[in-house]
């Protein structure tokens, strides 16, 4: 933090929050390890345990940490100084969706980045956790991380004792890693040509059905979406779109193949196109040449899988001893509250309104901005110039924590008050 004055100011506001806000405690919190980082110290204070909510609250009010963490694991002795002496009992299943791990999110402005990550969280929840894997809403704790993303904690008893390897399998499931297209479109050999005694073996692929589960069903509906999308475009645009996607393919797929692929899919024979037959007859056998069929497979792989892949930070999920931010604590690099959310609340959640702690004050404060900034917080829009600006305290906390501004030293009356 830029200056002592800034640090003291932010600490005071944080203290107000910890004094007033009700703490959300994780279940079995007595068995969890806690860790803290402070504005004026570089190391993390960890291997701590709290027997009661009151004890933790007292600690937070007195020490006002910049970051508060607790372990997804619970231990027999959470405060043992060595990991192996803690005696691991179980751990929540955790998903960490952060802008760093969502394709195309890392370069967006902060507001849009959070919106993009939120979209991925909804997909993780609806398609995978509540969908395929069949968890109940009540098993899930959704949390805005206060920083660049969201966390999802799964507390279903059956998830608690999953090993690291088993958790990684779940990550691979969500991200579509190592998906076997020969499983999605099973190959069956059949004999095609006979020449004297020699039979040429050909292979047929079977189209997954819409009622199939897992990635089979997901790819089937992805194909349907892809076909609808291509049908909505002119022939020229559709071919350009196909070529664009196939550029990423390892194989070199030429114009002629794309023309052939397009004709196989959309040229009508007896009133029906290949796409129609795919959808209506559950067949994959609409291609006149093998290279068209292989190109379509690449297209599916790149486009359909690429589009619907879940995103999550893999090492976090498979780490069964990870520390994670405590819901209802504050994030020292944004001043946002780490907000617990239900699935319904997530839809309308706006961190720039809902994650500003109520306890932060409206009092005006002079801050010096490093450059001009435009942002909305609570229900107010701020257009700030480089140099000294007067803003409410809650906005000052956010700007200072993000290193966008500092307390203007020439006005210290607030601090001495």
């Amino acid at each position, binding site marked *: 933090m830029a200056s002592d004055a800034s640090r003291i100011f932010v600490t005071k506001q944080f203290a107000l929050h910890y004094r007033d806000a009700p703490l959300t405690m994780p279940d079995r919190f007595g068995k969890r390890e806690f860790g803290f980082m402070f504005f004026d110290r570089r190391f993390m204070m960890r291997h701590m345990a709290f027997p009661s909510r009151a004890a933790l609250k007292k600690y937070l009010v007195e020490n006002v940490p910049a970051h508060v963490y607790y372990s997804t694991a619970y231990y027999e002795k959470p405060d043992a100084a060595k990991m192996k002496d803690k005696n691991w009992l179980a751990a929540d299943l955790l998903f960490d969706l952060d802008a760093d791990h969502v394709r195309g999110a890392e370069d967006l402005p902060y507001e849009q980045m959070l919106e993009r990550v939120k979209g991925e969280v909804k997909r993780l929840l609806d398609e995978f956790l509540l969908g395929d*894997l069949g968890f109940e809403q009540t098993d899930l704790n959704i949390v805005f991380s206060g920083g660049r993303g969201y966390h999802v904690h799964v507390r279903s008893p*059956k998830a608690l004792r*999953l*090993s690291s390897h088993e958790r990684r*399998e779940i990550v*691979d499931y969500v991200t*579509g890693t190592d998906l*076997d297209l020969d499983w999605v479109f099973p190959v069956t050999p059949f004999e095609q040509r006979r020449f004297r005694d020699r039979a040429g073996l050909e292979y047929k692929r079977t189209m997954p059905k819409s009622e199939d589960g897992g990635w089979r069903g997901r790819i089937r509906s992805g194909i349907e979406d892809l076909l609808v999308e291509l049908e909505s475009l002119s022939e020229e645009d559709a071919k350009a779109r196909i070529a664009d996607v196939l550029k990423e393919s390892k194989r070199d797929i030429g114009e002629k193949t794309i023309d052939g692929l397009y004709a196989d899919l959309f040229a009508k024979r007896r009133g029906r196109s290949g796409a129609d037959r795919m959808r209506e007859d559950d067949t994959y056998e609409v291609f006149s040449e093998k290279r068209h069929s292989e190109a379509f497979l690449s297209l599916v792989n790149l486009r359909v899988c690429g589009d619907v892949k879940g995103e999550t930070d893999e090492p976090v999920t498979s780490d069964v001893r990870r520390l994670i931010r405590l819901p209802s604590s504050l994030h020292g690099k944004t001043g946002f509250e780490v907000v617990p959310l239900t699935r319904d609340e997530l839809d309308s959640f706006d961190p720039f309104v809902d994650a500003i702690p109520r306890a932060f004050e409206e009092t005006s404060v002079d801050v010096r901005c490093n450059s001009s900034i435009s942002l909305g917080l609570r229900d107010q829009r701020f257009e700030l110039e480089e140099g000294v600006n007067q803003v409410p305290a809650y906005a000052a906390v956010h700007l200072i924590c993000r290193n966008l501004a500092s307390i203007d030293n020439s006005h210290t009356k607030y601090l001495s008050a």
Partner: protein
Amino acid sequence: MYVKSNSQVIVLTARFISDAAGGIVDHKTAARYPFLREAAELLKSEGVTLEGLISDRAYERARTLGKDRVLEAVEFAKVVERPIATETDAVNELLSYPVARMLVSCLGDEKFVHRYAIAEAKLANARLSREIERAKERSAKRGRMPPSGNDGVDFVMKVADELGLEISSVDDFLAVDFTDFLRFSSAIKSRSWKLVNQDVRNGKILINEGRLIRLVEQMISDRIISELPLPVNDTIIQALADDVEEIRQQLEVKRAERPERDFGRVSIVRFPPCMKKLLEMIRAGENVPHTGRFAIVAFLHTLGMDSDTILSTFSASADFDESKSRYQIQHITGEISGTEYTPPECSTMKSYGICYDPDSLCNKEWMGHPLKYYRLKGRRPRKRGDDVKEESSRSSARAGRL
């Protein structure tokens, strides 16, 4: 003596366990699946004691069979299936199981407990598979289409249930909870068993009969591993001493046959593509993710490279920070943490996105670990005449030394 022996057998065979409680066990079934709790209860209710089992002449045959079970586990990693034609066969087969367990317990070798457990589980797999086959044949003979749940499958389901696996039915398919599936398939490395390649519906995974049996096999070996070694007293140790010694010797012979686990000189030409790439990236000063640095350090360490050599390998990189790197390396090699890490398996490398440019050897169904790649890549096809093999392996080591 023989009179006594016969009378024992008669006592055993005369009393069939009543099936009133819906149990699944008669003598022949118990003999085929002796790991079931009901089989153990059957023995208990017959009044068979461990002391009797190890010393009584009546159980001579059972003891021989018990030793065979263990020796077969040593030799073939599978207990050989013996036909159970008569009640006497059944009783001896059943009794041989606790004998085998005592022998394994006296041996007190943790690795061998695993091998033995897997060997027993494989036998159970073979027998369960046949239950289903036979049931299919029976229904075919009756000229009916096999019903969706044939009684062979029902039996396998009962065994699974007894082992603690809940099986449900989803859209007329057998299904298990995905967490159970993960737990009992985690030892199976094949790609077709990955969760991502399963038909998952609302938390359940659809499985066929073969997969069900494979899961049950895993549960059986898990159960046996968790049960062994049993506590054995001096009487048992003394009574079985000769047999245990024979098994120990066989085990040593078998272990000596196994290929050398030492990796020899580190040879970069044998590196899998992922490790080559990671090494290149580090040397070029590119930004390598933490998981990648971990993987390459653990890999080099496992091949026997010492920390200083690993450090100097890395020092070429542009943003090289010696003290930080040294700390990280020593952490992974166990000098600081006390835990020696091994490199991640292929599936983990894939999850972390650091499985680069897999080649044809990587893409083999059974390929699961970068070290396995390294081990196999170095091996020349077996030829007659050892000197040829010596020469070629030596020259390849020289060519690719780091």
